[in-house]
């Protein structure tokens, strides 16, 4: 099973990018993670530019999503919501709605923040957006609050409880993606 990991943050050393990296480290046997890290190259959505084919970076994102079985998001929270860059990328990816690359795609959302709540509101909003796009949203929530305490100076996730949560979240996403696994 191929899973695409997307961090919603552009910042070098972002906690969410580090969380996505830890997610990749926890991949069980049979799961191959790919990382999409080209968020900064997506232009601002403009319907005038929404032609076929779309901008190169947008088409690359759409292809990356089409080529995997599921997608994992690690999102920060800006002003109680999804970061603009990530929402903008999804607005591009969602077009046209009926055939967009996220349609029926199993997705999961986790998040980290410097504050105590672990981006729970951004996670909820991101799930809402993904559902509206037609994605198959897995029942996953992992909120990593006080993120600066959870990673060492090399950016390695040192909290074993969160690592357990990541493994569990991957399992839920796998079962969401594969009804046969869920029934087993």
């Amino acid at each position, binding site marked *: 099973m191929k899973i695409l990991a997307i961090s919603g943050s552009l910042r070098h050393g972002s906690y969410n990018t580090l969380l996505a990296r830890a997610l990749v480290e926890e991949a069980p046997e049979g799961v191959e993670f790919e990382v999409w890290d080209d968020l900064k190259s997506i232009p601002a959505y403009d319907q005038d530019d929404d032609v076929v084919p779309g901008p190169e970076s947008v088409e690359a994102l759409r292809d990356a999503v089409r080529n995997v079985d599921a997608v994992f998001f690690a999102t920060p929270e800006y002003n109680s919501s999804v970061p603009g860059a990530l929402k903008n990328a999804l607005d591009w990816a969602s077009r046209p709605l*009926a055939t967009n690359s996220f349609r029926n795609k199993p997705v999961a959302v986790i998040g980290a923040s410097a504050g105590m709540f672990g981006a729970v509101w951004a996670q909820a909003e991101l799930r809402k957006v993904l*559902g509206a796009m*037609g994605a198959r*949203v897995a029942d996953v929530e992992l909120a990593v609050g006080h993120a600066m305490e959870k990673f060492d100076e090399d950016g390695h996730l040192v909290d074993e409880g969160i690592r357990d949560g990541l493994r569990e979240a991957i399992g839920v996403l796998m079962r969401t993606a594969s*009804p046969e696994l869920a029934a087993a």
Partner: protein
Amino acid sequence: MSSTAEQTGVPTGTWNADPVHSTVSFEVPYAANTFAATVPDIEATLADGKLTGVGRVASLQMKDENMQAHLQSPEFFDQERHPEVRFESSKLERDGDTVKAAGELTIKGITKPVTLEGTISGPLVDHFGANRVGLKLETVVDRTDFDMNWNMPLPSGEGALSNEVTLKADLTLVGQ
């Protein structure tokens, strides 16, 4: 062979829906009125007094194409994993022109008991010599019973979409 002998009972024999003259639809209260969708690709059979029907979610039509896509997505019907909606009744109960069909409705893989009620006309012989029965049936279901929980709060605090959905089947059945 179908029987047309008695117009006060439930027709015996086998009767299949004429898809051109049959419509399955649903309506949801919205603002001052309702909005509706149809499911054109259907099959329905009345056999030995029991009505069965299948609707294919891929054919679902609404006037708003984005809403149509949303209704087919996992948040609503989940067309990819649950391509069909089914109804199977026990024996229809007819009283004059009124009819009742108690049965089981399956949407999104979830089966619930429902009772469709409405009117029945015929059997009668149409202009081309075919035996026909008309059924107009409807029931109200709570969409959240079928794992369709999507909603958005309006500024007033209530949800944008009602949970109560009226299902309608207007069937012309032809004797086989």
